[in-house]
């Protein structure tokens, strides 16, 4: 009996000769299909059934009539959205938040990984533990901390401002402060965590390259520039595609927590609007239409980012 090539040795060696027999092959893998079954069912129910339900964007959905019984209305709800008075504000707010988050949040983790790679191992370990901590805090707690720390009466930030003789500022009610609060609290929470992937990539750097470069008299900065950065570049590109593919999305969870009546003009984004119109006001078809449109734009963004990076760097998702 040969032991190599038994990747498919689930089957008896005798059967191996008939591997082209698909049915037998499937039968031999029955245990693996069974392992996939829970995932298959979960995705079918909670991902694919809702995709079927997305047709209510083109229907006038009434609960009493059901999905099939509700009448078709074509693109009525899409038109309604584009004719609504706040449509462009929503789009502008969404892109402002996501592009600002991207510009602030994308380079910092790379910088952290590159610089933290240069300090002693013990300090690096300690710094990593500390930098990852905010990632494990919930959004509710994060929002609670932001609100408390920025509070004009009890907040420590305002206490510091007052200590230096300034006036206390009610940050949460200033529309002009909302985007900065949202973005930089996000950087605070996730920049450290997002550097994990670059640490992993940096661990693949060949030490021999550094040794050779040192022999040739390269300085540390030169070695980072010519060895470390090129090594992690494919990872940077992949992360770039994934992030760029998300540019049309701003999740509702954090925005809803930081939103209040006073900053609504800049804090209302597409996802929060979908939530309010859909869940709170039961305008099911209308908000499904907005959500669907947002989703399609996302997919287009992802494909464009993937295509561009495939052209420029020969690294792409698919």
């Amino acid at each position, binding site marked *: *009996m040969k*032991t190599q090539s*038994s*990747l498919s040795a*689930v089957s008896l060696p005798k059967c191996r000769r008939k591997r082209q027999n698909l049915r037998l092959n499937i039968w031999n*893998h029955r*245990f693996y299909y069974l*392992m*996939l079954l*829970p*995932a*298959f069912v*979960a*995705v079918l*129910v*909670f*991902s*694919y059934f*809702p*995709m*079927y*339900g997305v047709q209510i964007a083109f229907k006038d959905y009434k609960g009493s009539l059901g999905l099939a019984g509700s009448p078709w209305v074509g693109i009525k709800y899409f038109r309604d959205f584009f004719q609504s008075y706040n449509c462009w504000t929503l789009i502008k707010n969404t892109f402002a938040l996501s592009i600002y988050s991207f510009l602030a949040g994308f380079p910092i983790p790379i910088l952290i990984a590159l*610089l933290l790679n240069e*300090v002693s191992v013990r300090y690096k370990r300690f*710094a990593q533990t500390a930098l*990852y901590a*905010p990632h*494990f805090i*919930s*959004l*509710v*707690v994060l*929002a*609670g*901390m932001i*609100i*408390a*720390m920025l509070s004009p009466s*009890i907040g*420590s930030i*305002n*206490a*510091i401002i007052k200590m230096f003789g300034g006036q206390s500022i009610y940050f949460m009610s200033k529309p002009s402060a909302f985007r900065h609060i949202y973005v930089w609290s996000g950087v*605070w929470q996730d920049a*450290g965590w997002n550097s*994990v992937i670059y640490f992993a990539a940096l661990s693949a750097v060949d030490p021999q390259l550094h040794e050779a470069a040192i022999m040739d*008299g390269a*300085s*540390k*900065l030169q070695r980072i520039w010519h060895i470390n950065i090129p090594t992690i570049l494919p990872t940077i590109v*992949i*992360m770039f595609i994934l992030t760029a*593919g998300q540019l049309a999305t701003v999740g*509702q969870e954090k925005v809803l927590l930081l939103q209040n009546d006073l900053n609504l003009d800049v804090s209302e984004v597409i996802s929060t609007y979908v939530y309010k119109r*859909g869940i709170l006001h039961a305008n099911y078809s209308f908000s*499904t239409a907005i*959500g*669907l449109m*947002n*989703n399609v734009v996302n997919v287009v963004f992802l494909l464009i980012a993937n295509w561009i990076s495939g052209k420029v760097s020969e690294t792409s998702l698919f």
Partner: protein
Amino acid sequence: MTATRDSASDRHFRSFCYVFITILLLFVMYPLLYVFSASVSDPAMVASGKVILLPKGFTLEGYRRVFQDKNILTGYANTIFYTVVGTLINLITTVPAGYALARRTLPGRRLLTVYFMIPMYFSGGLIPTFLLVNQIGLYNTRAIMVLIYAFNMYYCIICRTFFDSMPKEMEEAAIIDGCTPFQTFFRVILPLSKALIGVMVLFFAVEQWNTYFAAMIYLRDQDKYPLQLVLRKILVLEQTSAEMLSNAIIVVSSLPVLIIYPFVQKYFEQGVMIGSVKG
């Protein structure tokens, strides 16, 4: 000559790295230290802005109030339930699926991978999911809290990459010794996958522990609320009435997670993440 000049500039750069990282650490740690200090300080000191870094007027009154609050305790119990059951379900759906998808001989492997990956990029959206949950009778049940995020393809890809990078010889040996794939998976593969399981448990548990949005949409009865939804009410919706216990409650709700992750931290980079971003 040049060698010494270079090493001097290297030294400068090294010092710059230390300074940069230290300043970064101060920024990251400050809010956490502040909340902790405020939680054990005299509320009057906190309210008048006297607490800036270190505790002033030590008291555990805030913690006493937290543990007397019935809503918080119910929320805590609910969250523990959702986290334990939800994490188990997540593991059952995600880890074996990753193992099966790592098997290159599996007929239909590509098709199945596409099936699982499409929802990463395209989803029905909030409202169709909400209507579906209503339709199948899971609205306002505890079950929806542990089922709605039962499967996560991103984590499944991490599992698949991990199993794919395992040496194939062990599996082969087990199969030749007469193990069924189930036995191979449970007796040979899983005991060798402690790093992966540890990271997966952490990721799933943290997500279950920290989520509030699903609960806000799918739950109506207050006695089913997880901790985060109770916190939202206290910390975000009625900010002023709760200054007394708000810092203590932040500490009590975040501490379990903050204590656990350093134990798994060494696995974060250790190959678990490598190559996993790319689908």
